[in-house]
């Protein structure tokens, strides 16, 4: 594999991890979030600061990064998850802008210069780069997807599905809306934080611009394209939207046109996403591999 392909793939895998987190919030629990890049950024900045100024190795810093992500998720989720629909969407956009502004204007976070000189991740005394870093990201993607899969099979996950479908009915069955929405939100922000930490150590430089609102939209687009609520949807969405700009490179200025056309066609013909409920692939291809009991 060329180093170009490895770079693209690594970024796709990191984004897939973040979109898996978004899937828990939006796909499983049905809470819209348009500020997911903020939590990606919080993970990246925590990892960057802990490894540069804190001098901690990635492996020691990682649990701290995940705890910081979870706590900020809790702190920001607590007020915003009391809102619904458009209000929640707008609030999460606000979170994105505020977090980005803090990164940009608070000197502690490096200001406009960002944070540079983030060390590479060491495994058995060896610095990971190229394909090896990609394998590490794939390992974490595997872990995240396994957790997502498990989450869909436990009662906490089922509670989130119920809240997504009918909050009043779910509440009448003993499900506390705040508790389970927060749980999904925290799980989602932890995955975003993990993706952020990997991103910081891969780019070895972070700045506030890397975590702007358009990135949140792009995460959501990946999720919607791949199929909300499905296990593989985030991966498929990240692959397609990550690879397409590269594949469309020869089209130069027409790139955005094709991009828009594709999204429109998806909305028209496959609104549930590529792997979503009642999508063509799920209807036509899945039955060939899976024999479901009637």
């Amino acid at each position: 594999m060329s180093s170009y392909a490895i770079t693209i793939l690594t970024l796709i895998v990191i984004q897939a991890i973040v979109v898996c987190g978004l899937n828990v919030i939006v796909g499983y629990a049905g809470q819209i979030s348009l500020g997911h890049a903020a939590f990606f950024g919080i993970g990246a900045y925590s990892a960057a600061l802990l490894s540069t100024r804190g001098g901690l190795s990635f492996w020691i810093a990682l649990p701290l990064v995940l705890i910081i992500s979870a706590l900020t998720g809790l702190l920001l989720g607590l007020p915003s998850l009391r809102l619904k629909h458009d209000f929640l969407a707008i609030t999460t956009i606000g979170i994105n802008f505020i977090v980005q502004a803090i990164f940009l204007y608070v000197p502690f976070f490096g200001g406009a210069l960002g944070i540079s000189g983030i060390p590479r991740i060491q495994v058995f005394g060896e610095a990971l780069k190229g394909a090896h870093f990609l394998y590490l990201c794939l390992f974490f993607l595997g872990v995240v997807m396994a957790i997502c899969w498990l989450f869909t099979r436990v009662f906490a996950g089922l509670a989130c599905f119920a809240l997504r479908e009918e909050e009043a009915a779910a509440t009448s069955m003993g499900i506390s809306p705040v508790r389970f929405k927060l749980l999904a939100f925290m799980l989602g922000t932890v995955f975003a934080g993990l993706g952020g930490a990997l991103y910081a150590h891969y780019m070895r430089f972070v700045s506030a611009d890397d975590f702007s609102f358009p990135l949140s939209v792009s995460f959501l687009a990946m999720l919607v394209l791949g199929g909300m609520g499905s296990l593989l949807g985030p991966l498929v969405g990240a692959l397609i939207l990550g690879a397409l700009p590269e594949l469309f490179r020869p089209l130069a200025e027409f790139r955005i046109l094709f991009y828009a056309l594709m999204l429109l066609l998806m909305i028209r013909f496959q609104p549930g996403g590529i792997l979503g409920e009642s999508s063509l692939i799920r209807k036509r291809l899945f039955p060939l591999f899976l024999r479901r009991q009637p």
Partner: protein
Amino acid sequence: MNPALLEVKDLSIHFGGLRAVDGVNFAVNRGEILGLLGPNGAGKTVTFNLISGVYKPTSGEIWFDGKRINGLPSYAIAALGLGRTFQIVKPFSTLTVLENVLVARGITRYPAPSCLWTSWKSRQEAQAAMALLDRVGLADLAQRKAGLLPLGNLRRLEIARALAVGHKLLLLDESFSGLRHEEISQLEALIRTIQQAGITVLLIEHNMRVSMALCDRIVVMEYGKKLAEGTPAVIQQDEQVIEAYLGRKGESDAS
């Protein structure tokens, strides 16, 4: 033991100037089927929503099984063994019928951290949920997506879910409305078996024939107040009730 499972004392809720429920008192005795009747807008569903914790009362008290429950959130009241259905059905549409019941079966799990690692896909859980579906006659539709069911089946699904939650009291909000004739008699029989299983039932019903035949006692509401209370035979003879439903004798105004 207190014969009343549920006691509503001087219950009121005001929405701005509207007194939707205004000083209502009644009790539901253990093991009985109590009907809550009244014309549209009488405050029956609001009363249900007060009991199940959807709304907080402006004043008054609600006692359930020796515990004061007004002010508790819905999910905590449900956990005490009070299940309810909704006048406008609220299925979890993209989940299967079986999964809908499994959500309700989780009632004992949700307050504890163990809901983070206890699987709902076990054979035991499925069997228990299937038993409930069997009881309401939906067993053969268990794998169907709930959003695809017709109204009659959705009402039965709501009862199955409420049964999983309400091992002490069921609140049924117009479970008979929109049903065909034979569905009505099936549902009547079902509610009788629920009563025989020792579960107390409080139901809102518009269908006179059904409520007269099914209920042990009836409470009639009008304009947020209790109008009458008694056995079906007493209620049928009650002047005020007849007036509320049919209008005063000799009154020419048809509106």
